[in-house]
């Protein structure tokens, strides 16, 4: 078995397609299991007696909510990316107190539930500061939350690039910022793409928690539609499809970028 898997590993980089029998058998087995799971789920769902009549009048509102979720996600994604880069730079700063403060921020954000951050952020902080817009408060909180995780992904990506690359950059006379820009970051990008895409999909889904401060996004609109129409499954299925419609393109885009940055190392 170990010899077989070694053979697969060796053959992978050279792209000669000599796959061992055991790997093939295991691969087919796993594929069949997943396929059977899908089929049975579809069968269960299809045998349910759906009735969308009750909820149909609320589709307009749900569509508006979906648009709101799309907008919030889009804006929070941009802001969290900028803030995440800023926090990464702060974490890698040569100034120790800057690193400590950043660390405290990240631990606070990662150690507490998003829902408490939303409640405290809106009812305490924003309220005290006299900020009224739930929309913007929601976006800022989501961004602040996502950026903390993002900067950890970025930091790990940058630190995963070996010391020899720094040496090599220094040996040819590059400055520290040039080494980051020309050597380290281009290699780190590929490594952080999958985790970042997953985090952005989380961001989209996390935006549903903003219902707690009554932001009229997709989840809140769907909740209201279900409450008013007494439909349940019929409301949740469009909800799931609606979120997938945003998260799938993120995932596909990330795959595309990965292929673009692909190189053997």
């Amino acid at each position: 078995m170990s010899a077989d898997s070694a053979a697969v590993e060796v053959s992978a980089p050279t792209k000669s397609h000599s796959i061992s029998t055991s790997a093939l058998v295991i691969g087919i087995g796993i594929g069949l299991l997943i396929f059977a799971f899908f089929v049975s789920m579809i069968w269960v769902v299809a045998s349910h007696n759906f009735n969308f009549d009750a909820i149909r009048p609320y589709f307009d509102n749900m569509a508006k909510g979906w648009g709101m979720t799309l907008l919030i996600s889009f804006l929070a994604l941009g802001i969290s990316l900028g803030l995440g880069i800023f926090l990464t730079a702060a974490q890698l700063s040569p100034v120790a107190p800057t690193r400590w403060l950043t660390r405290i921020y990240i631990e606070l954000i990662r150690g507490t539930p998003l829902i408490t951050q939303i409640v405290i952020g809106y009812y305490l902080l924003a309220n005290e500061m006299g900020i009224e817009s739930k929309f913007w408060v929601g976006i800022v909180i989501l961004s602040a939350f996502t950026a903390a995780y993002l900067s950890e992904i970025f930091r790990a990506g940058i630190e995963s690039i070996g010391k020899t690359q720094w040496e090599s950059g220094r040996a040819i006379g590059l400055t520290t910022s040039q080494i980051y820009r020309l050597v380290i970051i281009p290699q780190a990008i590929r490594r952080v793409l999958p985790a970042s895409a997953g985090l952005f999909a989380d961001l989209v889904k996390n935006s549903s928690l903003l219902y707690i401060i009554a932001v009229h996004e997709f989840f809140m609109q769907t909740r209201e539609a279900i409450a008013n129409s007494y439909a349940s499954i019929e409301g949740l299925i469009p909800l799931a499809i609606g979120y997938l419609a945003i998260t799938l393109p993120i995932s596909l885009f990330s795959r595309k970028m990965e292929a673009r940055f692909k190189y053997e190392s």
Partner: protein
Amino acid sequence: MKVSAQHVDKLYGESIALRGVDFATADDTQVLVLIGPSGGGKSTLLRLLGGLESPTRGDIFHESTLLVQQTDPLRSFRRKNGFLFQAFNLFPHLTALQNIMLPIIHVHGQEAAAAKEVALSGLERFQLADHAEKRPAELSGGQQQRVALARSMAHDPDLLILDEPTSALDPEMKAEVLDVIEELVEAGQKIIFSTHEMGFAKAAADEVLFLAEGSVIAQGNPTEIFDNPPDERVGAFFSRVMKW
């Protein structure tokens, strides 16, 4: 070239890499070779001579000028010289051509078109013209080391420093890299290198430093060092490495 070190110590935390290194080459030395057992301090001394690290104590001189141990003077020193590592250290995300072009553009300020011309002629010189568009992972070890050599030669360095350039290569690739280095030696390039290839060291060197246990044990021209080992540790080292 004239290179010298005065009372140089280098410590990494508690461990002593170099202790009281003192030497000066003759004024007209073209090729200085460092030999000696692994862990004896060859790499560390090369890194200090190349301005990649600073000594804990003591001074390094190039052409009788003190190498000032501050960020900017060290960087400008590194810019006019070339440094080659044992493990090639190419940038894996860039092609061979881009690896060579990068310092020409970003360190030496040339336009991309001019840099490409220089890089291509460098690839040509080291018989790599067919591999310009390949990434390091697609090249053999010997080819990678020759690309690295082309990169460190592209700006016509005053001094080329090579840290065991063939240690990570099999015999055939060793030969192809040593051929290129020999060619540089014949072209008059000033070189300091460390190696375990005793035959090559003897043939190429004007001056030899033997390092062991962090100190210079012996210094002299190759005939003195190889044919008449001045210290029993040098003799013992030769009989070990020449045995097989």
